[in-house]
């Protein structure tokens, strides 16, 4: 699979022949054409392009980091770094006996708060519905927010989480990655925090470079132990 990767831009013919077009490719006759700037991959019989740019498009079950934009008496609106705003109903936080009269939404989440949320439902007709009622979800109290390009999130996680494990092990930081490109880093030691943030930014800048994990490892191990 490694040998069939190549850099493509919109209009480039990735391959031709009996392949199944998957993400970010279209079929034109028997040619498979990329629709975005990215790296093409051919697996068995399917072809896809991993994008290097672009906005976050919500997908059901994605973990995202959101920022509270505003609220009505029934729900919050979250900025999830997408072209759509996340919709967080109050029942999700207060439970089913939520009453618009008795409960004050700002007591739980205020404008500007960061939350880890999951996309509960999304289709093209409505704004994404998010939920925070699950373990590991909810308001984020501490940590630093790092913004990277959403298309580079898979790179930051790495194959089976190798990249993120590398960074976490070397710095002792706890890293929460939102699929929308927002990442929260928290760490006891300031040096570890700085290093982890630097590593994340490095992945963002050099996402297209091969064997990046080794480069990141090298950077983390250089200048002093954490």
């Amino acid at each position, binding site marked *: 699979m490694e040998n069939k*990767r*190549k*850099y493509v*831009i*919109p*209009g*480039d*013919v990735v391959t031709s022949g009996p392949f199944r077009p998957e993400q*970010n490719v*279209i079929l*034109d006759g028997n*040619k498979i*054409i990329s*629709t*975005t*700037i990215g790296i093409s991959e051919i697996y068995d019989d399917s072809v896809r392009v991993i*994008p*290097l*740019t*672009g*906005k976050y*498009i919500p997908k059901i079950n994605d973990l995202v980091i959101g920022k509270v934009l505003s609220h009505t008496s029934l729900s919050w609106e979250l900025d999830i770094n997408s*072209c*759509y*705003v996340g919709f967080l109903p109050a029942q999700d936080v207060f439970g089913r006996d939520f009453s618009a009269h008795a409960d004050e939404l700002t007591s739980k989440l205020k404008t500007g708060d960061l939350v880890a949320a999951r996309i509960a439902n999304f289709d*093209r*007709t409505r704004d994404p519905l998010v939920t925070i009622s699950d373990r590991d979800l909810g308001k984020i109290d501490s940590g630093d927010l790092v913004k990277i390009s959403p*298309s580079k999130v898979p790179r930051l996680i790495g194959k089976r989480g190798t990249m993120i494990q590398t960074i976490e092990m070397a710095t002792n930081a706890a890293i929460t990655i939102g699929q929308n490109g927002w990442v929260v880093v928290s760490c006891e030691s300031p040096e570890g925090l700085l290093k982890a943030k630097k590593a994340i930014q490095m992945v963002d800048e050099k996402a*297209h*470079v*091969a064997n990046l994990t080794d480069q990141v490892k090298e950077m983390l191990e250089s200048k002093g132990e954490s």
Partner: protein
Amino acid sequence: MGGRDATMVLLDENGIRCDGRKVDEPRRIMIKAGGLKNADGSAYIEFGDNKILVGVFGPRDVHPKHMSDTDTGILRVRYHMEPFSVGERKNPAPSRREIEISKVIKEALEPAVMLEKFPRTAVDVFIEVLQADGGTRCAALSAASVALADAGIPMRDMVAACAAGKVADTVILDVNNEEDQAGQADMPIGYMPSLEKVTLLQLDGVLTPEEYKKCVEVGINGCKIVYDLQKKALNDKYFGNGEK
């Protein structure tokens, strides 16, 4: 724009044009992807003496809300010439011509951009002509598709554009300002080279059917030259320091 020079020779006996080019030679073209930090995607093009900057935003919320479409995203294009882009100060308010070119470029980009993936959103394309020298719509269209690709908006293909025309009864590639003013025909063409589809075709002037066919052919060849440069611009930005 520039006054007409009655003594100017548009095409001499050796087949050399007023700016020293051959009949099938485009002007010097330079395209750069990126450059604007605050835009989601951007591009800068120098097409001869044309200098054009394009910024793309989106997909993003549509304002005013009533413009949004529940089935698909919408594309909005603003072509604007700076007051200093031409010899005599141009009023910065949108002119009839700029409104028309905005519409024409929008319609030339629409077949390429897959807006149906982003219902209820808008993609905004802002084109600023810093310096104009004939053929700005083609240069602007070429730069706009690079900027759209830079913004990561899915596209079936990039739109490359180049003009063909007729001066001194000869079909020429890439009409400049003098040739546009004094020539016999000007035909801007927008073309998607991978899909082999034309998205823009205008004609100002009179051509015989044979000349028309020749013009389209020459223009499409010009588009292919532009297309290679568009690809190079994007490759330079995204894979410039890559190892593979």
